[in-house]
Structure formats: structure tokens, C-alpha cells
């Protein structure tokens, strides 16, 4: 058996009286794309925020490439090769595209920012990814929802992460931009050295791009199958059946 790139064992998280996650066991292998689905409020975003070091779990272990770790902060997780695209994108409206691309890992010619180098690299990288922007110097506030999402994804892909966590990267996307993001994920898959955990609501897209699918319900993983072994109908039935039961 291969060593998982990232593994969660028995992760639990409470916010006051609310139990967000009760016992999460999940793993993603090197080069694998794992789809994480589940209802709104099932705890998907909380789980992502634990895996990226933003929240600390109340119980359970996180194992990165076979090593058990305590993720102290987002920076710490990043240094271990875990990078995240948050649902809210974590873009700073007041800053330019290229400053956002390099947020908190700016290129510096001490004591000043090396704006020219950041600009050049951002331009090249976005072009490689097929993101069309007239000017990387423009403030992010002036871009469309899809463009903003593309930049957030591009930023994480560019970071040379080993594990990418994507929290609903397709949510604000038009058809064209959505396809672009899916293409980026396929590219990563072809490269084979980056693992991806992707949260999405569109099951067809999940099955299309993911190797394996996990379903998160009531703070637990209740379903774990290879994408090839399941179907749109099965996933829909599972979620709908749960909804009926709860009613």
C-alpha cells in the first residue's frame, strides 16, 4: 500500500455546543484527486480548514506523507506542502492581481518588494494556465467572479504544493472558466505528483475529474468509492435518501 500524501484519523471539531466533525477518517494518495461532497453545513469547509492548519482539531491526528504532524498555522501547513483555495478566495480587493498571486510569499529584494519579478512571473503563469487578463497590475476588485476564482486557484497551483485543497473552486464559475479550472486539475493529475482534495456540488464534474469520491454527512465520512465504481445516480440517491430520512 502506498503512503497517503495526506491522511486524517479520527478528526473531531466542536464550536461550542455545535459538533461540526465527529470522527473523520480520510486520505488522499500521491497524485490522486479526491472529491469531497456533502450537504451544506455537513462540515466540509471546517474539515478543509483543519487540514490546512487554519483550525486546530479537538481530537484526531493528521498525517502528512507518513509523518504525524500538528499543524500550528496556515504557514506551517504550507511549509509541509499543503496549500488551499478557500471558498471566500482570500483575495485582497485593494491589491493588484500579481500582489494577490504572491500574497504572503512576496518576492523581495530587501527591504523592497520585487514588483517587476512578481509581475513577470504572474503574467507568465496565468498565461500558461489559460487565464486571460488584460493587465496583472489591475486591482482584483475590478475583476469578475470567475476571474477572481481563477486567480485564487492559479495562486495555489503556482505554490508548488504537494497537496492542494480546493473549497468549491467551481462555485462562481461560468462554463468557460469552470472548464479551465477542471483542465488545470487534469493537468495536475497528468503530472502525477500533486494530490488534490476538491469540494464540489456538481456531481457530474466531480465524477468527471476525480479518482475517488468521499461523502461527508453529519460530521463523518459515510461513503468512499472510486469514481469509476459509482455513478451520478448513486451519489444523488445517497444524498436525497439522507435528506428524506432526516425529514
Amino acid at each position, binding site marked *: 500500500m502506498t503512503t497517503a500524501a495526506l491522511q486524517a484519523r479520527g478528526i473531531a471539531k466542536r464550536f461550542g455546543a455545535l459538533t461540526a466533525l465527529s470522527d473523520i477518517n480520510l486520505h488522499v494518495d500521491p497524485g490522486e484527486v479526491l472529491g469531497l461532497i456533502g450537504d451544506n453545513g455537513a462540515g466540509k469547509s471546517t474539515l478543509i480548514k483543519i487540514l490546512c492548519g487554519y483550525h486546530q482539531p479537538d481530537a484526531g491526528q493528521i498525517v502528512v506523507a507518513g509523518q504525524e504532524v500538528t499543524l500550528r498555522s496556515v504557514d506551517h501547513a504550507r511549509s509541509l506542502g499543503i496549500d488551499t483555495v478557500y471558498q471566500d478566495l482570500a483575495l485582497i480587493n485593494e491589491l*493588484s492581481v500579481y500582489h494577490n498571486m504572491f*500574497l504572503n510569499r512576496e518576492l523581495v529584494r530587501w*527591504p523592497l518588494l520585487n514588483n517587476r519579478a512578481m509581475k513577470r512571473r504572474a503574467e507568465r503563469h496565468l498565461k500558461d494556465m489559460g487565464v486571460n487578463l*488584460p*493587465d496583472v497590475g489591475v486591482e482584483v476588485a475590478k475583476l469578475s467572479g470567475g476571474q477572481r476564482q481563477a486567480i485564487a486557484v492559479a495562486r495555489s497551483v503556482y505554490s508548488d504544493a504537494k497537496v492542494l485543497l480546493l473549497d468549491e473552486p467551481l462555485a462562481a464559475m461560468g462554463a468557460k472558466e469552470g472548464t479551465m479550472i477542471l483542465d488545470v486539475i487534469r493537468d495536475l493529475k497528468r503530472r502525477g505528483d500533486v494530490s488534490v482534495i476538491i469540494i464540489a456540488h456538481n456531481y457530474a464534474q466531480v465524477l468527471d475529474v476525480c479518482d475517488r469520491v468521499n461523502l461527508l454527512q453529519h460530521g463523518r465520512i459515510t461513503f468512499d468509492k472510486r469514481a469509476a465504481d459509482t455513478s451520478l445516480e448513486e451519489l444523488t440517491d445517497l444524498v436525497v435518501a439522507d435528506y428524506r430520512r432526516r425529514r
Partner: protein
Amino acid sequence: MADTAERTAEEAPPRAPRRVLDAFLRRREASVLLVALALMVYFRASSDVFLSRDNLVNIAQATAPTAIVAVGIVLLLVSGEIDLSVGIVAAFAPFLLHFAIDYYGVPVLLALVLALALAAFIGLVNGFIVTQLHVPSFVVTLGTFFAVQGLLLITSHAYPVPIPEPVQGTFQTWIGAGPWASITWAVVIVAVFHVVLTRTRWGLHTISVGGNPVGATEAGIRASRIKIGNFMITSALGGLVGIMEAARINTIDPNIGGGTTLTFYAISAAVIGGTALAGGSGTIVGALLGALVLATLQNGFNLIGYSANTIYLILGLAILASMIANQYLSRLRRAGKS
């Protein structure tokens, strides 16, 4: 960057002079610079002595303290905070200098460093309570304002003291008593912090923390460190201004040279200069120009012969008018860019 957007938007590029004018008008500092120049033209026309050397020194000496404190205020406003205590820190700092030199025999330069460090410590306390105990900075600094005022009045017995002897002479001239000393300090500090805000990681993170607090934290930026740092910078600058003013007035007086007036002027200068109270954007050069506008207004109306009482009314209306104009202009700017 506005240039390329403009070129793609329009078929034929406008002629060069118009482009330069456009680029200028789109800078945030443009409106306040125009206001400052208009005021100067107006007062020059109304009073012959307005541009005399002595009066220019007056304006410079009135501009400098406000501008220096406004530098800190801009950093704080951009990172989404405010400091109401900085003026009283300014009043306290020269006493710290006096205690260190006259009671403990500390050498002048070391005493200066100590006084500024203690001022910065008050900023550290402000920042700590704001970021770690999650109390809004408006309330925290209101509290420290009164607390420091109490400390100041207790330790000074509310009596002024003369400038310590070792400070007199070269040091006093150099730090604030010389006619152009304070404005030189102000220009240097403004230049340095303009670069810090626009060209360094610290500045970028200051903007990020104020513009999108959650996003900045998600990106791994340590918001608390940035904010505490900016509180410390503001308090230290306040302390420096207090010492400069004491040197200029040639006495250390607990009742002048600080307090709410300095704080309010600095906030006004920052806001007139184009810094948003909402966080995420601001300009330090604008704050210097804002301080210049305030000083010019006060000085000019004095020369024309308005009474000191009228000046406050005019000042208030001028702040409101310039803010409304700024709001309108920035909307125009935004419309022009997109």
C-alpha cells in the same frame, strides 16, 4: 496600470497632455494637492505676508507635528484600526525625557531612545488589547488616553518644567527648535513610510489586513503582528512629536503640545488626504498634504483677521467639504477606471 486599461478601452489614445492630466487626477493625492494650492493662491492674494519667510516657517511648524502623527494614523486606518491616545502620548514623552535626564542622569540620546521606546510600549499595550482581547481600538485607545493622561498629571504634578540642560543648544535646535527642523523630520518620515506602505511586505500586509481581515489570515498573514506593529509605530511617532514640540516651545508643559487636538488634527489630515476609515486603502503623502491644508487654513484665516473662534467653525466646514469632494472625486475616479 490605468494607462493600459485606458488604451484598450478607447480607440484613439488621447493627446499626451490630457493623458498626463488624467493620470494625475486619478491619483488619490490629486484633489488635496489642488485644494492646498488653491488655498495658497487665495491667501497670497489676500495677504502680502503670507509667503514671507517667517510665515512659511509658521506654516511649516504647524504642518510637521500633524503630518508626523498622521503617518501613524494612516498606517492604523489602513490596517483597520484607530488610535485616539496618540496625542496624550505626545504630551507624556517629553516628561519621560525629562525624568530620564534630570532624575537618572541618562545621556540625552539614550534618554530620547528610552522615551520613544516607552511611547512605543503604550502602543504595544493598545495593540495587545485590540488583537488579543478583541476590544475595538476606538474603545481601547479611549481608555489608554485617559489612563496616560492620569499618569502624566500624577507624575508631572500638572506643572510645566524647563527643558533639561543637556538638551538645550544643538540638540534642541536639531530636534525641533530650528525653524525648518520639524518639517525636515516630517518630510523624511513621510518619505520613509510612504515607501514602507507602498513598496514593502509590511505595507502590503497592512493593506491586506485592513482590506480583507479573514482572507489575509487565511493566506497566513499574522494580522496581530501587523496591527500591534502599527500601534507601536504610531505611539513612537507621537512621542517624537511631543519631544519636538517641547523643544520648539522651549518648555515641557503637560497641558499643551498634545492631547486631543493633535490626535484630531492628525486624523483629519489623514482623512482629508484621502485615507478611508474603512481600512484597506490610504496614502501617507496625502496625509502630509492634508496636514498642510489644515495648517494653511488656520494660518491664512489668522492673517486675514478672522478670530481664533471662527477658525474652528471654518475648519470643521472645510473638513466636511473636502470629504464630500473627495467622496465625489473617488467615485469619478472609479467610474473612469472601469
